């Protein structure tokens, strides 16, 4: 019996020839990412260990991105703890440089790696053929101290992509459609693998957006076949693959789902569940108070370009706040150079520093009671963006920008 990509990566990390879904393997991790959401607690636990030590400090990457700049003395204290510890132990440390997953994609992730991230959207790394999975701080600490962990080898749902997305339809619409189809726990414990001829029509920005959101279907990881587009991205960022894996022809998939990209339409996920999807046009009577373009899902240069094209020469609707947040410093600088940030500023948007921003729901752009947000963020659960009685709609960069202009939920062809 052949193996899936997930099985091959885990077998390699376990030092074995093979493994299969359902096995529990002890694995050596290639990289360990942690951010300011939980690292202060990791440090407290570390300091309480009998014999605290770090197995391989070169594998650690710590990123302050969730609540930066700090919003309160408590946040400042937790971030200081993280900063001081990183400095003391020589841990690779980023602060204010961007959202952790974008930083990881730009600087660290390599095909074939097995990566733990103390953040659920670590599955984004599959866009480069790496097995990224989210963990809590106890799992993180154990891996930091021992260099290893245990993993239940996941079953794989394989998505065969065919055709091409139509003009005005984006990767975000595709992954929301898939989550709606399989439901919010449709891939619980499983790997979501993407392959097929349609993959070649998707840019790296599209691919990261797709893999990133797979945890919203419960997935343990997302994986994409590594092709020339992925290798070019890697080369442009000065890195080489660790290993390139592909699922075997006779690999055992839990399910195979064919997706025709040309059938995807602009989609909105309505409150309060990511799988509560409808055709975006069905929401055109919904009045919005705020729009957010950014996050690890849609804050890349390609997403900002889409928004800028739509809003150029137009204005943000009266009474609407439009927050535009590049996903990293690199994205910010490039957008500045291309005049994209100018376009947004002239239209009346607020351009913020690279960070998790509205998607984190506790720092910038928090919404109040009864308010409505349309967002390229990752989640729309009750209270995710602020007050418990507020409403979050999720959509593509194009739909979010068009809605900011119109003041009601709108697709790009409506403005």
């Amino acid at each position, binding site marked *: 019996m052949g193996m899936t990509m997930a099985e091959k990566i885990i077998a390699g990390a376990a030092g074995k020839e093979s493994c299969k879904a359902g096995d529990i393997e002890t694995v050596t991790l290639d990289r360990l990412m942690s951010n300011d959401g939980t690292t202060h607690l990791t440090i407290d636990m570390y300091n309480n260990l009998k014999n605290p030590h770090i197995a391989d400090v070169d594998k650690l990457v710590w990123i302050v991105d969730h609540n930066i700049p700090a919003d309160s003395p408590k946040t400042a204290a937790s971030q200081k703890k993280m900063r001081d510890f990183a400095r003391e132990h020589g841990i690779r440390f980023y602060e204010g440089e961007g959202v952790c997953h974008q930083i990881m994609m730009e600087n660290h992730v390599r095909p074939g790696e097995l990566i733990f991230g103390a953040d659920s959207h670590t599955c984004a790394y599959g866009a480069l053929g790496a097995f990224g999975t989210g963990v809590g701080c106890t*799992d993180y600490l154990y891996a930091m101290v021992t260099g290893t962990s245990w993993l239940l080898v996941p079953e794989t749902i394989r998505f065969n992509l065919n055709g091409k997305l139509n003009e005005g339809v984006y990767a975000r619409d595709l992954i929301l459609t898939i989550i709606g189809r399989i439901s919010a726990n449709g891939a619980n414990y499983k790997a979501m693998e993407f392959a097929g001829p349609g993959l070649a029509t998707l840019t790296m920005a599209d691919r990261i957006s797709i893999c990133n959101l797979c*945890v919203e279907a419960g997935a343990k990881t997302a994986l994409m076949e590594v092709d020339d587009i992925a290798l070019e991205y890697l080369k442009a960022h000065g890195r080489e693959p660790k290993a390139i894996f592909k699922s075997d022809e006779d690999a055992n998939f839990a399910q195979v789902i064919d997706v025709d990209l040309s059938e995807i339409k602009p989609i909105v996920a309505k409150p309060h569940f990511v799988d509560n999807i409808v055709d975006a046009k069905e929401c055109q009577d919904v009045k919005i108070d705020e729009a957010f373009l950014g996050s690890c899902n849609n804050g890349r240069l390609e997403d900002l370009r889409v928004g800028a094209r739509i809003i150029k020469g137009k204005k943000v609707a009266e009474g609407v706040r439009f927050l535009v947040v590049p996903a990293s410093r690199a994205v910010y600088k490039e957008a500045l150079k291309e005049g994209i940030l100018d376009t947004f500023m002239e239209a009346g948007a607020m351009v913020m520093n690279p960070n998790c921003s509205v998607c*984190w729901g506790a720092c910038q752009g928090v919404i109040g009671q009864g308010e409505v947000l349309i967002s390229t963020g990752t989640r729309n*659960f009750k209270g995710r963006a602020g007050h418990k009685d507020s409403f979050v709609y999720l959509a593509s960069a194009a739909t979010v920008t068009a809605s900011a202009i119109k003041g009601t939920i709108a697709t790009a062809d409506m403005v």
Partner: protein
Amino acid sequence: MGKIFKFYKDVDTDQIIASQYLLYPTIEEMKGHTFESLNADFAGEVKEGDFVVADENFGCGSSREQAPSVLKALGVKAVIAKSFARIFYRNSINIGLPVIVCKTLPDEVEEGDDMELNLKEGVITCNGKEYECTKLPDKMQEILDMGGLIASLNK
């Protein structure tokens, strides 16, 4: 014997403990805000030995370990749900909070019902009816028995 606090399906970890409290220095300072958006009285009313019962996919969303940690800190003895999201499930075992899959119980009990859990035997008793708990994989039972993953590092 403990009381049941009941929740619905797809309760995500943001709703267990919201982002705005996660960077507080300690779990002790966060725990008063547990389930704030769903049941503002929860943190004040829950007592040592009480239970959280939920429908499918409990603990989906963010990987924040603060979610099981605040439940444990408030004295919640176990969470019983039809199913759990994987990161929450793993985090709970790692910190020594029992998480129990039971497909039938959540539909047959009400908020405020008294319930008893015999963790060793894997049996729940509620309203005169016995429910068998789904067993943990050996690896996870071993971690739970040790008192969590950190305890294994301190051996």
